């Protein structure tokens, strides 16, 4: 039998006899027990970077501050990602429960959901659920208040420190790290920033227990993950799968029979050509493990009718527009990469110029201030490595 993806159903499954049951139960547990359970579960952030959630909460709990914040990152701007949208529509209660549990653990009394402007249409329904959540906080004696802060159209604001600046009413430019948000976050107070899905998972660890949660996942990866699957596939949509699947397994399930490449992790992730479908696994890499590719959930499939030059050009236009312009390698680098591949395509530059661009991308990786500039090389180099002819001719 061909190897298959393993479906999971913990995120969208109906879970409780009455609303906010798990929140009520979790509030009776000690913060340290919850932190231990999160660490044991192996849960890592679902927004892309994969920081261990239990540790983040532990740092924020330890941090000194008269006021602390819990922030839900619902900026979901990575091209090809739309799974947080489905959580916000279908199970916002689970996400809010996770935020409430985080408040209990860290001692935060205020929180907000940073909702991207493109999702403004979800605001009214979400606010209703927040009101309902507040009733339960009151009932359980949890001093915690959540509001919605709306974005205004900027991809980089998904980066956590840029998000905090934006929430403070400023330009959404990333800050230097350290200090990290857990010690100096919103208004310089200790702040936990987690992805929408991470809060749902944290709540799920409280519900089913760390051992049960850690049973999900293959090849050493822990838990299930939502994937946003789009592009050349007969069944685009949001799917919950066990982490640690190979790209081949994914393509067997979702491909259209003619898959040429898969973009894992959005435009800031990696492009995997068909020759490497077998060896690439989706999950968090250990040390120097190049065969694991992390993702916030974006999976885009391309079939053989697609020009990879066109794909790369589209990505670079995206980066050029979304670079916040704060640091030179990224601001100028994104412009030059785009200009450069166009010039090569038109024959105005020698094909060898592609090597210069490649080096530029690598330089951006080590000299850019934030994850945006640092990750342009991921897609640029992985596409150029494999589809050089298509880029040049």
């Amino acid at each position, binding site marked *: 039998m061909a190897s298959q993806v393993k479906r999971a159903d913990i995120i969208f499954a109906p879970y409780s006899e009455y609303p906010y049951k798990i929140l009520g139960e979790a509030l009776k547990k000690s913060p340290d027990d919850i932190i231990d359970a999160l660490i044991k579960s192996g849960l890592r952030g679902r927004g892309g970077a994969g920081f261990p959630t239990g540790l983040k909460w532990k740092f924020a709990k330890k941090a000194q501050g008269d006021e602390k914040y819990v922030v839900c990152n619902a900026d979901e701007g990575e091209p090809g990602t739309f799974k947080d949208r489905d959580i916000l529509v279908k199970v916002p209660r689970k996400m809010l429960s996770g935020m409430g549990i985080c408040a209990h653990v860290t001692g935060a009394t205020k929180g907000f959901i940073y909702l991207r402007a493109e999702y403004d249409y979800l605001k009214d329904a979400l606010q209703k659920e927040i009101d309902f959540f507040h009733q339960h906080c009151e009932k359980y004696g949890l001093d915690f208040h959540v509001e919605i802060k709306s974005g205004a159209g900027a991809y980089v604001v998904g980066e956590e420190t840029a998000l905090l600046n934006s929430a403070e009413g400023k330009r959404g430019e990333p800050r230097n790290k350290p200090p990290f948000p857990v010690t100096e976050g919103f208004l310089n107070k200790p702040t936990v920033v987690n992805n929408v899905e991470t809060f749902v998972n944290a709540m799920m660890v409280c519900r089913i227990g760390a051992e049960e949660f850690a049973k999900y996942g293959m090849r050493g990866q822990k838990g299930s993950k939502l994937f946003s*699957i789009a592009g050349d596939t007969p069944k685009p949509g949001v799917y919950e799968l066990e982490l640690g699947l190979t790209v081949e397994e994914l393509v067997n399930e979702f491909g259209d029979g003619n898959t040429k490449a898969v973009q894992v992790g959005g435009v800031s992730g990696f492009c995997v050509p068909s020759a490497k479908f077998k060896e690439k696994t989706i999950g968090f890499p250990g040390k120097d493990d190049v065969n694991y590719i992390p993702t916030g959930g974006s999976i885009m499939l391309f079939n053989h009718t697609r020009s990879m030059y066109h794909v790369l050009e589209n990505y670079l236009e995206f980066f050029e527009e979304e670079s916040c312009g704060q640091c030179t390698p990224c601001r100028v680098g994104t412009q030059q990469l785009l200009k450069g591949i166009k010039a090569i395509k038109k024959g105005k530059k020698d094909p060898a110029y592609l090597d210069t661009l490649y080096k530029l991308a690598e330089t951006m990786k080590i000299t850019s201030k934030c994850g945006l500039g640092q990750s342009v090389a991921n897609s640029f180099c992985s596409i150029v490595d494999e589809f050089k002819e298509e880029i040049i001719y």
Partner: protein
Amino acid sequence: MPDTTKLIENLVEKYGKKRESLLPILKGIIEEERYLSEDRMLEVAKALDISGAEVYGTASFYSFLDLKPRGKHIIRVCKTIVCDMKGKNEVLKTIKDCLGINVGETTSDGTFTLLQTNCIGQCDHAPAMLIDGEVYNELNAEKVRNIIKEYKLNRQN
């Protein structure tokens, strides 16, 4: 159109006279006037007691905070890769034909502005666009024509 001094006063009252309120206040003005004029930005600066440059610097950072006059309805067609693959060009062409404008332009009666935008999180229903805050997806030429017709007929105010 409401009195703008009043509008800004109301927004400041609603969100509080603090730096963090700047974005919600600017979004509130956009909702009423579709763009931020220099005068409005200066009024906001005064109301929040910060410099005009700070208001402009913040406003100019965000793509949904327009600084140029816009039509009553702003159409934003997604141009990121999946929508691009699934027929974004046909959507754009249909809108251009229906309205007689190019990307970045506003119809002469001031009803529609046509813009492009980056990924709006509708890739599973591509191609997609936003009109004001609303999402329209799984678009094709006919669907687009009907949507525009509906806006022309029913959303005059």
